[in-house]
């Protein structure tokens, strides 16, 4: 077998080997953690710093504007900011702009509240603390004291209590969502008389303190499409509401102009953006460790390296085999 033949065979490699390679390098890092450091960028730090400044008198919106297809990128962003807010007792309103995205919101809550998740938050149903609420105990500190004095104990491993209606409200999906945003600039309650669990919003202490988007300090839109622009058009441009983007890597470049003009306070781009937020949370002790996005970055590193190796090999074979002088190769498999 001549040397040229080896190069030729390399160039005409059955692409199923490439598929197999990508498959393997994408699975392995889930079992072996490399934990390669992720450097944080100013775009993500500015969201982190902004949220970090907030306290229980503030409130934020997290909008789930993504479908299961881009879940791997968008979900960790929402989860990370949710945790950050809960840690600082910032009330969180959660919305979704499409029926399918409503399911994503529920999945995020299930993850953060699930006792098997590391650093979970113990969720208290709206109905379970009705008595305390009706007795007028609504401030977070008092509420926790009163709740614990009733004999409730924080489970092992939990980061803290979250009270539905005090710390979060799952508003979910409402039709024609761009108009819903517009309506919420006036009143949240008229758009969502009840939340996804059919609790009356009017009874929620967090709503009484934050009646419209004007009284909310930030919206994070985790978006797999151009829906994030709705928040700019209908909330930022109309009432000057601060908006942060959590978008997929593919659309991240499109939104740099918004950052430049200050219409967006910060942006998490793709899995990397989410990983950066996780790193910031872990570094500041808000979570004990990083999460899915950070693990995913190992996959990214390895997969990128594999692709670059493939490109280099392809070029070596191409030149070493002298194909740059020759006619076209026959097509692969």
């Amino acid at each position, binding site marked *: 077998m001549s040397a040229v033949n080896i190069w030729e065979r390399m160039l005409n490699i059955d692409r*199923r080997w490439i*598929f197999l390679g*990508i498959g393997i390098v*994408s*699975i392995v890092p*889930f*079992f072996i953690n490399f934990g390669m450091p992720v450097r944080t960028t100013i775009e993500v730090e500015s969201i982190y710093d902004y949220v970090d400044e907030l306290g229980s008198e503030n409130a934020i919106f997290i909008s789930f504007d993504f479908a*299961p*297809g*881009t*879940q*791997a*990128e968008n979900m960790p962003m929402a989860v990370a900011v949710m945790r950050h807010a809960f840690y600082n007792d910032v009330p969180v309103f959660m919305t979704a702009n499409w029926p399918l995205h409503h399911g994503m919101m529920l999945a995020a809550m299930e993850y953060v509240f699930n006792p098997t998740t590391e650093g979970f938050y113990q969720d208290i149903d709206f109905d379970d603390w009705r008595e305390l609420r009706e007795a007028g105990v609504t401030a977070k500190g008092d509420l926790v004291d009163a709740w614990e004095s009733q004999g409730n104990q924080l489970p092992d491993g939990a980061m803290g209590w979250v009270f539905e209606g005090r710390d979060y409200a799952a508003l979910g999906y409402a*039709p024609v969502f761009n108009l819903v945003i517009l309506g919420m600039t006036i009143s949240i309650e008229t758009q969502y008389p009840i939340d996804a669990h059919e609790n009356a919003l009017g009874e929620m202490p967090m709503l009484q303190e934050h009646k419209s988007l004007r009284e909310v300090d930030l919206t994070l839109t985790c978006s797999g499409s151009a829906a994030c622009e709705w928040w700019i058009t209908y909330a930022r441009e109309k009432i000057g509401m601060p908006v942060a983007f959590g978008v*997929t*890597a*593919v659309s*991240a*470049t499109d939104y740099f*102009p918004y950052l430049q003009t200050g219409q967006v306070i910060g942006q998490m781009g*793709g*899995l*990397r953006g989410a990983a950066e937020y996780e790193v910031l949370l872990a570094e500041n002790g808000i979570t004990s460790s990083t999460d*899915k996005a950070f693990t*995913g970055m190992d*996959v*990214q590193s390895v*997969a*990128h390296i594999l*692709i670059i190796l493939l490109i280099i090999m392809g070029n070596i074979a191409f030149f070493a085999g002298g194909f740059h002088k020759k006619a076209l190769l026959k097509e692969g498999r």
Partner: protein
Amino acid sequence: MYETIGIWVGAIFTLAIYSFLYKENSIYRLAEHLVVGISAGYGMAITYQITIKPRLVDPLLSGDHWILLIPGILGLLYITRFIPRISWMSRYPIGFYMGTAMGVGFPLTMKARVLRQLEGAMVPLYQSGMAWYEVTGNVVMILGTLAALIYFFFSKPHKGLFFGTGSKIGIWVIMVGFGATFGFTVMGRISLLIGRIQYLLGDWLHVIE
């Protein structure tokens, strides 16, 4: 129980699609045909439920929105397509849709794709506090835009100093842009795979968190 069966079915169909990577096969073929049927059927159901029923049928039945008969009839004209003798009538709704869509699009395109882009290309080269690479970047951006525009010039041959060199630089800039976009997209595409692996290994097999 419902959820468990659901995840099993979903996982099986996920693998069915991945089997296409190895070879086109009968399981992929089944998944392919099923998803075509289901999605088209879902489209029909959802179109009726979110458009035709609340926007046409309900208002008409309530009795005082007779004006909606116009779009209703116009819409029904599509169906004349199945009757060859009067199939030309289906051009009416298409015409309505085409005309209005073109009209709505015209000023918006002028604003977003022309004026806004022109505005973006007219940036100051230097402002105090800019690093050297930002200044060179601005120069590259402006000259690059000009060169790439020359490439899209159709009424002159690409010869001579201005059009020849210009269009050559233009295609270089375009290629660098394409390379960068390609490279940048890789991360997003790998993330999609990560999502499916989390579904298969996590939700289905529970071997990872």
